[in-house]
């Protein structure tokens, strides 16, 4: 019963706890790893305990949410749109329990559900600008795990960014698919090789565990790649230009701390303006990032300028999810 009178940061506050539920096993999924990192960071700062529930399929998501509700933690965090359905109903049934959804928001948002989401498309656009400036052949591509609506936030804006600086760039997306789309690096590599074989010299990876396959394909064919979510430049030194970053950890940990402090509910959207998404080129430490973009100061300058234009509202990046 941690509802009742809000005690804020009173010294006698009961032990705080955080439960994070993922839609899939975390494994080497960089996005989920960031989610874990953010929750752990918040727990450390709050002196709270932390538990991770990894789900296997939609049914087990619901099961994990129920188990979490029974444990009555300070906040239950669910990552991704896979929680849209569950968080439509469960928070309403447990008004005393606080929930946080990261990276999406249930349609019928209850007062005890806070949401954090991101404008990935803005970061993808910046990466596209880099690709447009750096491509020699004028052909670029993306290898994504599956053709879901969401993944298009990394595809069309990427191509749009490229054409914004070089009108004749053509972009091709390929999807890994097959029996195990999220964990088939060999197939992802074949896809990337298909792209490079047809002349693409830049391939962005959005293939989960397949990313490493994309980097290998780039390395073997002299092309360059983009990573996703976190800095993946070190995974294939010299072959990765930059990454479409999503600072899930920062946003999530901030949201958890706010909830712990009693500021519950509401939606926070992180874009370039809020520093919730970005590319390594914008970083002060770009030189030590291992990303090859560090060697092109003019590209970095252009990217910074486009970022400023977006923040200032001079450029609007179309969100593919909004039709």
């Amino acid at each position, binding site marked *: 019963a941690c509802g009742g009178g809000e005690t804020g940061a009173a010294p006698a506050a009961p032990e705080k706890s955080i439960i994070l539920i993922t839609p899939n096993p975390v494994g080497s999924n960089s996005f989920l790893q960031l989610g874990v990192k953010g929750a752990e960071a918040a727990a450390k700062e709050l002196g709270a305990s932390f538990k991770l529930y990894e789900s296997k399929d939609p049914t087990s998501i619901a099961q994990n949410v129920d188990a979490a509700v029974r444990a009555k933690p300070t906040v239950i965090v669910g990552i991704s749109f896979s929680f849209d359905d569950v968080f439509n109903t469960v928070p309403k049934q447990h008004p005393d329990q606080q929930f946080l959804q990261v990276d999406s928001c249930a349609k019928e948002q209850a007062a005890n559900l806070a949401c954090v989401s991101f404008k990935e498309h803005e970061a993808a656009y910046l990466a596209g600008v880099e690709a447009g400036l750096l491509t020699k052949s004028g052909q670029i591509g993306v290898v994504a795990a599956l053709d879901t609506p969401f993944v298009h936030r990394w595809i069309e804006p990427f191509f749009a960014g490229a054409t914004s600086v070089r009108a004749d760039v053509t972009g091709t997306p390929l999807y890994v*698919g097959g029996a195990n789309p999220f964990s088939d690096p060999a197939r992802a*590599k074949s896809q990337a090789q298909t792209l490079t074989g047809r002349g693409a010299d830049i391939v962005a990876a959005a293939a989960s565990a397949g990313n490493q396959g994309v980097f*290998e394909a780039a390395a073997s064919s002299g092309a360059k790649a983009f990573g996703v979510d976190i800095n993946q430049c070190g995974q294939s030194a010299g072959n990765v230009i930059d990454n479409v970053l999503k600072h899930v950890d920062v946003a999530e940990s901030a949201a958890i701390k706010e909830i712990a402090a009693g500021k519950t509910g509401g939606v926070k959207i992180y874009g370039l303006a809020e520093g919730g998404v970005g590319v390594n080129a914008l970083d002060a430490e770009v030189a030590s990032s291992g990303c090859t973009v560090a060697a092109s100061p003019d590209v970095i300058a252009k990217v910074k300028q486009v970022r400023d234009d977006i923040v200032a509202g001079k450029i609007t990046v179309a969100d593919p999810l909004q039709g």
Partner: protein
Amino acid sequence: MNIFELSFLSGVLTATAPVLLAALGGLICQVAGVFNIALEGQLLWGAFTAVVVSDVTGSAWTGVAGAIAATVLFSGMLSAASVGLRADPIVVAVGLNLLALGLTGFLMRRIFGSGGTYSSPELAGLPTLAELGLDVPVLGPQSPLVPLALALVVAAAWWLGRTRSGLRVRAVGQHREAAEAAGLRVGAYRHGVVLVAGALCGLAGAQLALGNVTLFSEGMSAGRGWIAVVAVMLSGVLPYRLLLACLLFGFAEAVGFRLQGARLPQQAADAAPYVITLFALVLAAVAARRRPKEAS
């Protein structure tokens, strides 16, 4: 798009190699009368052990050897249970496939500290033939295991068709009692082929994890072992037909990728290899039915 581009053919060969190696293992088992559907699990286990050994020793070739040894051991469970103790090989294989999935996932967390994907700059992959100084088209970008796989098809055809032990393996598969009565050691031959299939799946796994890519990721066999089983069933236990079946599948997959590039939906590309294989099957069967009738 030009499907005769060399890079395209090379890609087909890369995609085909692990399937072909595993399927060869399945084929010799089939010839000896053991229906081996544990290829998926063994392929995964081979990939995992190849990466572990290569990572520890820093040598890809030791990784290949380790994968062969470890997968032979793994297939020892199949041979002990289904040949030695005469348990139903299909049931045992279903269990072993599950075991391989669980074991690799579990051990991965123990050894590398996390699930998902393991890759590292220190992890040694197989060299390409080009790197070994054999820069020929199509084969140049392949690991030496790819031409080895092709050579093994020829070797298997020769072995089964011409040699004494090959003849005996065929005999054992056709009629167990007859083979026993002819004084052949049925159990020994069946143990043998299951273990050799283990070695081939080890090679297949090594090619997948150290040749096609240089990493391990959970469940990375991704159904290739099942495709190998289908190829075996389509081959009529003839090695060259097996090669054809595997190549057809790899070819159809690569065509699917290209079609995706031409804006066909991903789902169509996913379905392509299966649909093309079905068509090929139906055409072949219809042709086979028509032939004798025309003679009359």
